[in-house]
């Protein structure tokens, strides 16, 4: 029952994933603009905690990896380690133009990006920096993907 598409436990897990996404925020050489906009989502004006979203201190606790910045040469190894430390199922959100295209840093010898050359990216949120509304929309799209990940169903039945 637990492994099937329509089983009770499967639906409960899917519902739980929609309602409790924990973020880990990684700055891969960003100018801090996107980081400030991401933190703004937690303030009383936007209050993403009402959807169960919270920022976690450890990548091992997280479901959603939010990356800002064009991935500089020095941050690449840390990014790969942190991606590896996150338990499945996980999704990656690229916040701002830098992780998507390297933005104004494109062509620099110190940049290893864009992000999708290094780890798989699920959702891109464009903007320099994107507005908090756009970030919240991107994260909610990412959560929808997270909830429907098939690997979760096998994880339950094990």
């Amino acid at each position, binding site marked *: 029952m637990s492994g099937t598409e329509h089983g009770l436990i499967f639906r409960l897990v899917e519902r739980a994933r929609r309602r409790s996404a924990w973020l880990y925020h990684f700055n891969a050489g960003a100018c801090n603009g996107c980081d400030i906009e991401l933190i703004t989502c937690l303030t009383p004006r936007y209050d993403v905690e009402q959807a169960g979203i919270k920022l976690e201190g450890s990548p*091992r*606790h997280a479901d959603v990896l939010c990356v800002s910045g064009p991935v500089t040469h020095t941050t690449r190894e840390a990014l790969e380690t942190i991606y590896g430390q996150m338990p499945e199922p996980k999704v990656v959100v690229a916040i701002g133009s830098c992780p998507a295209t390297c933005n104004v840093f494109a062509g620099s010898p110190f940049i290893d990006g864009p992000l999708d050359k290094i780890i798989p990216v699920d959702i891109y949120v464009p903007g320099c920096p994107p507005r908090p509304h756009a970030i919240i929309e991107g994260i909610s799209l990412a959560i929808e993907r997270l909830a429907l990940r098939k690997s979760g169903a096998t994880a339950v039945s094990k």
Partner: protein
Amino acid sequence: MNSSRAFIALLIFPGLLYALPIGWLMLGIERKLKARFQGRIGPPLSQPFYDVVKLLAKLPVSREASDIPLLTGLPLLAIGSMLGTLALLPVFRDESGLVGDLIVLVSLLEIPPLCFILAGYASRSIYGEVGATREAVVSIASNVPFLTALVAMAASAGSMHSSQIVSSTPWMVRIPALAAILFCLPIKLRLNPFSLANAEQEVLAGPLTEFDGPRLALWELAHALEWVALIGFVVVLAIPYRSPLWYVNAAGFVLLSLALVPLLTLLAASTARLKLAQATSMMWRWGGSVAALALAAAFFVRYGGQ
């Protein structure tokens, strides 16, 4: 000792079947109220339940085989000792099945912080070690007023038996002793002014930094049970009266436990984290002096009359 009643105490009330939903409710109330105090809407009351379900359904990153028994065993030990504490609480007039005195109760109550410290060191993360060191220092400091207050209550009641202490401690001793124990409550629950060990962002996630998926879910469960057990312990010590009707006792226990949650949340929402030295000296100074007052009162009650 009656074994069927012991099972009821351990597994139904005030054990697992009661403690788990109430623990989630307490954590839910804490998060919701904290958000309301900060001018936010906050998560629904069911949030802690969904967090645990989500964590249980995650696939942990593989670790070295030697780590796994320790990292799974420590949270399980914490959960087990919290259930034992709950079963030993003298909620009703007569013995609830399990027999144990104050020493057993307190030592079971002290196991989860110990597991938390060991978990920090066992995870071999620098952040885990910093968190574990802080937890060790804070728990030693908080146990000074906590244990002194309990000794005062036991000495004035002339017994080590928990139901005897509950019923026959005079108010002169009970009030300062309860004040000292209440002072220790936010420290033992790692709530805000004393959230040194699990200081989010500051030391990543403290001793739990390296825990993921189901193993983290076990810690979340242990934390929920810790809320029910510690708050229940204070409530049981606070009311000396036990009704012959079991449901009156149970209802009083549940309602008073839930009434303490908003007070703890208000404290957590209105204060900022202290430094380790500040928290320790505060505990020794204020908690210690109130507990010393209780001890002096207990001495007076026992030997002052003659």
